[in-house]
């Protein structure tokens, strides 16, 4: 029998397979298809202080081996998430869930984090710092080590739950930003968010996405994500939740060898709604194939000569 259990800052998961925020709703669309309790956990739809419609449509564009999305954090706002969505989520998922939090000011992050801190079913806070800072000229919180560290410090001050900072790859040096988050008290790093991308419609000769650009995800970005996780693992001691183009149990293991303690499935959920379940089921036999008995022991294995 192989051991698939992993530990994220004291939160023990049955397996490292998670679903990424924005690709799994609040779980119940998928619970119609299979028992989602087979997952290690999942990160629910990014939550902001106020309700948001998000960006105008079209919000989706296809790419070779991936897609661009520009949803723009559509969500009903933290109050409704707590009063309406989380009770529904609890009926179909009985393990601690990951709360994904977005914000446009420091105060929004802390207000949402403080409210979700009180939710018993939430095991971990994942802070999306790819949002623009409206008081900082619209620059993303995650594009400078200073603002990334400041979000980390402020969120840590209002919650007892583990805080994982979800990093954007659209930066010059992701390692220094990860280190700044660790120094500011982050319990872990979640990476990578989508890569900024674009497509143009030849018929209309205009960008397909109404907002012109969007976040590129899917199997095409796997090598980029893997490389960044490998680099960040060398520099920080805190756990990493890895994501970016994962489609198979082999990808999960590869990402763990690079340094991820757990791995999220994102875009693949949208094209194969059974993807996460199939990966959970395939994991033990793939581990056996490569002579692995305990998943936790392989984390960062590629760094040990």
């Amino acid at each position, binding site marked *: 029998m192989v051991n698939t259990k992993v530990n994220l800052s004291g939160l023990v998961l049955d397996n490292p397979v998670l679903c990424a925020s924005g690709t799994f709703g609040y779980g119940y669309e998928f619970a119609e298809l299979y028992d989602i309790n087979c997952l290690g956990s999942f990160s629910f739809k990014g939550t902001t202080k106020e309700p948001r419609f998000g960006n105008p*449509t*079209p*919000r989706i564009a296809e790419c070779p081996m991936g897609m661009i999305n520009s949803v723009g954090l*559509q969500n009903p706002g933290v109050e409704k998430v707590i009063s309406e969505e989380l009770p529904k989520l609890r009926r179909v998922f009985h393990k601690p869930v990951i709360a994904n939090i977005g914000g446009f000011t420091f105060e929004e992050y802390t207000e949402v984090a403080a409210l979700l801190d009180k939710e018993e079913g939430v095991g971990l806070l994942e802070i999306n710092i790819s949002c623009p800072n409206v008081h900082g000229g619209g620059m993303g919180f995650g594009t400078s080590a200073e603002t990334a560290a400041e979000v980390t410090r402020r969120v840590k001050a209002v919650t007892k739950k583990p805080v994982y900072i979800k990093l954007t790859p659209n930066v010059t040096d992701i390692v220094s930003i990860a280190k700044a988050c660790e120094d500011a008290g982050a319990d872990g790093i979640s990476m990578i968010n989508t890569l900024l991308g674009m497509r143009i419609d030849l018929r209309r000769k205009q960008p397909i996405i109404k907002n012109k650009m969007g976040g590129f995800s899917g199997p095409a970005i796997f090598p980029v994500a893997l490389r960044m996780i490998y680099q960040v693992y060398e520099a920080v001691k805190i756990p990493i939740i890895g994501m970016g183009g994962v489609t198979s149990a082999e990808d999960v293991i590869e990402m763990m060898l690079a340094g991820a303690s757990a791995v999220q499935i994102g875009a693949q959920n*949208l*094209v194969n*709604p059974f993807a996460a379940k199939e990966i959970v089921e395939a994991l033990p036999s793939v581990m056996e194939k490569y002579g692995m008995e305990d998943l936790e022991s392989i984390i960062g294995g590629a760094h040990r000569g």
Partner: protein
Amino acid sequence: MKQVFFKILSQECIARDVMKLTLAGDTSAIQGSGGFVNIKMDGLFLRRPISVCDYDDKTLTLIYKIVGKGTEKLAEMENGTELDLLVGLGNGYDLSKSGAAPLLIGGGVGVPPLYKLAKLLLAEGKRVQVVLGFNSGADVFYEEEFRALGADVRVTTADGSYGTKGFVTDAMGDLNYTYFYTCGPEPMLKAVHKATKTSGQMSFEERMGCGFGACMGCSCKTLTGYKRICKEGPVMEKEEILW
């Protein structure tokens, strides 16, 4: 929603760039009319959503226009090819509001979902009138099929090469109807919204990520709140639409 593997039974070109695809497989998750399926295709990342034209216990008919990579690929597929479909998607048309004499208005590849709808309404003993609009005579399809069901059919073409010259709204003025159902390109839907004298239901299109409500890629604003075209749509009530 259900994932079902279908086999291609036949495929034929029924108008310019318009293909009729007949598939064999388990259709038990498909209900009513106006819903859609989402087809996985090798080598392409996203599935392709296509509206359901007709189905019985074992077969499913889809009509699609060749407009891009996905539909080009689909049109080249051989009989016997197995396809991975998500079926039972979308809310579909609500028949209960039709009254005794509903009007069905279709434009281009918006015509197919109205076919099953017409069948269901006629089975309930309703008097069904249909107006079908196309760009040109070469684009016309399913006129005879609707007529064979027992519906009154009018056809319009924008260039006047077949039927009444003009748009669907040019052939509706003298009709008496109790309710309407429509599907077609957005400019047509807008014109129909204005020209119709009764309540009705309109089916919308949008670029989708997943097609089953997970990604929020196809959201729209309505007078009754935010809706996902794939989940709370594609069919909306005339009165709730915000243009």
